[in-house]
């Protein structure tokens, strides 16, 4: 029972720090926060406020391209009614790309963490290497690889395995492009959480009568959930707002919401308020989805 007393009796008493010391320390903390806070203020909060203001502006009738300050929610109504299909497509394609990226990334991250041995660093370099060229250049490269004259479509057509006749300019190409572009953001967090897992904990699964698959299902996978959660968010959020893949690989009709925003800002005269309203709606929708997702699958922090 003496051991029990020790176990139960861990006193959790933190002595109060002397006041002047504490004040000094907290000032240092604020000082250290300052550059980051300034950066966020100038480059995030201000533009956001500006965007919110623009999203509520109204047009001068008869003067295309001119606005006046207003509180006009019609832009939001237009965003939701006219562009609902674009939102739906964005979330569908981003969701599919996230799922595919997970399917590809998990085994890759698993192999890197547990099986790669001396090849681990090389695999890591291969995962990160695409970042050395521009995202747009790489997507251009994919538009050539998947082109009708390219060897992929050519081979599949030759084998009569491509019912539509082409890959480029289809939703499939867009989803493939999104999957490809955001794959590292899925691999790295999963790898990090697997690599951090104590191999003895996984061995303990085997020691306690769980075979390989059961150990994976009941021990390894749950332990890597923080990484999976981070990876899916890092993939889904940018993929839902992406327009480059659709622009370069996608069809002419049936665009994603990112393309609409891009067009409204740059190509449609007087499109600013709608573009701003669309941006805000997209942000809000993603926030709600992420919140629900984290509530459902988020685990409290693991070790």
């Amino acid at each position, binding site marked *: *029972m*003496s*051991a*029990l007393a*020790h*176990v*139960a009796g*861990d006193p959790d008493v933190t002595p109060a720090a002397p006041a002047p010391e504490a004040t000094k320390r907290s000032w240092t903390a604020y000082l250290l926060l300052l550059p980051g806070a300034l950066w966020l203020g100038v480059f995030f909060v201000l533009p956001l406020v500006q965007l919110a203001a623009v999203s509520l502006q109204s047009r001068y009738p008869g003067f295309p391209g001119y606005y006046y300050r207003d509180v006009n929610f019609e832009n939001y109504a237009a965003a939701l009614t006219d562009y609902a299909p674009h939102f739906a497509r964005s979330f569908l394609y981003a969701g599919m790309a996230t799922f595919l990226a997970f399917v590809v990334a998990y085994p890759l991250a698993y192999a890197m963490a547990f099986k790669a041995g001396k090849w681990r660093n090389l695999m890591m370099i291969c995962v990160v290497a695409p970042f050395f060229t521009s995202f747009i250049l790489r997507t251009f490269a994919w538009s050539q690889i998947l082109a009708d004259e390219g060897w992929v479509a050519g081979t599949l057509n030759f084998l009569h395995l491509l019912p539509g006749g082409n890959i480029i300019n289809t939703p499939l190409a867009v989803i493939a492009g999104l999957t490809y572009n955001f794959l590292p953001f899925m691999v790295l967090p999963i790898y990090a959480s697997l690599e951090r897992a*104590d191999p*003895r*904990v996984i*061995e*303990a*699964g*085997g*020691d*306690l*009568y*769980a*075979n390989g698959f*059961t150990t994976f299902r*009941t*021990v390894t996978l*749950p*332990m890597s*959930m923080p990484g999976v959660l981070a990876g899916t968010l890092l993939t889904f959020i940018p993929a839902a707002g992406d327009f480059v893949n659709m622009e370069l690989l996608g069809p002419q009709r049936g665009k994603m919401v990112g393309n609409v925003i891009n067009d409204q800002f740059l190509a449609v005269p007087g499109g600013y308020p709608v573009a701003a309203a669309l941006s805000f709606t997209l942000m809000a929708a993603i926030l709600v989805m992420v919140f629900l997702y984290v509530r459902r699958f988020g*685990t*409290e922090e*693991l*070790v």
Partner: protein
Amino acid sequence: MAGFREARGDLQLDSVTKAFGDFTAVDDIDLHVPRGSFFALLGPSGCGKTTTLRMIAGLEQPTAGRVMIGDTDLTGSRPYERPVNTVFQSYALFPHLSIKDNVAFGPKRRKDKDAATRTDEALELVQMSQFAGRKPAQLSGGQQQRVALARALVNHPEVLLLDEPLGALDLKLRREMQVELKRIQTEVGLTFIHVTHDQEEAMTMADTVAVMNKGHIEQLGAPAALYDLPRTRFVANFLGQANTGVGTIKDTDGDHLVADVLGTPVKILKSRSQVHEGEVLFGVRPEKVTVSRTQPEGAGNDVKGVVRDVSFLGVATSYLVDMPSGTTWSCYEQNLDVEPLDLRPGDEVWLTWNPGHAFGVPVDETGEK
């Protein structure tokens, strides 16, 4: 894939060898552990004790030899097929599961209908019932250690393996857990195999201790027997302290051998020496040596030395004494006298011992400590 194997009886290792590339971690070990005993594998790090344990668990497969429980050959079977459970070093609790689910993990995998009851009983046994709903990260090291023990014990394995289970605990808690482990082992009556580099821990708990070095078992026996009569230089130095000196056997005197250790004749009982001619490593434990200011009468085994250091330890006083041979002996005197010896560094003293306590082992080391 073979299923779970029921096996009952003594644990037996037959000529088990494990090599990792060029390195032989465990070299042709034979071991017989009777059912229900508390067995310790003791040795320095890298001696092969953990590898031996992992082969019993099935986490490593031997390069050669067999692992048996009773008549069942477990060689080649997977960890989850063996009636063996492990308390891992640093506990390896499942961080995403509650304490209760950690303990219930084994019974659930085996589709035990009484999983819940058995989990409660196991938590009761280690006095952790009130923490059942917590996560491992919310427990202290000692508490995690108990949970790890419960998680293994709940399965009633035929053999329970403990891999340095108390290594991460502070001294006071370690002492408590030693007593606790011994109590639980007596209560459940399972075979415990305990791997440790801490000789005191091994001697406190185990019925039988096997001292390992460089992949071999140097000596195996009851703790008191190993301490009293080591058979190799490694065991003499690893298990407790020993005052030693290299000598040459010159003569016999009845039941005794007479060896010359750098000019000092010493006696060793023939039955307590592993060598009977040529070079011998003479040894005597520090607490068997008596320190006095004057030469005692008729003892025969005495040497004059100079005190180098005195440490007062409360129950005892420890002396370091420089010997004429150039070595330094350590002596351990209980503080029984009303008039203390009051020795200072530089004082000349006589060291004596009963020749019945001396031992002789081969000079060549099978391993440096």
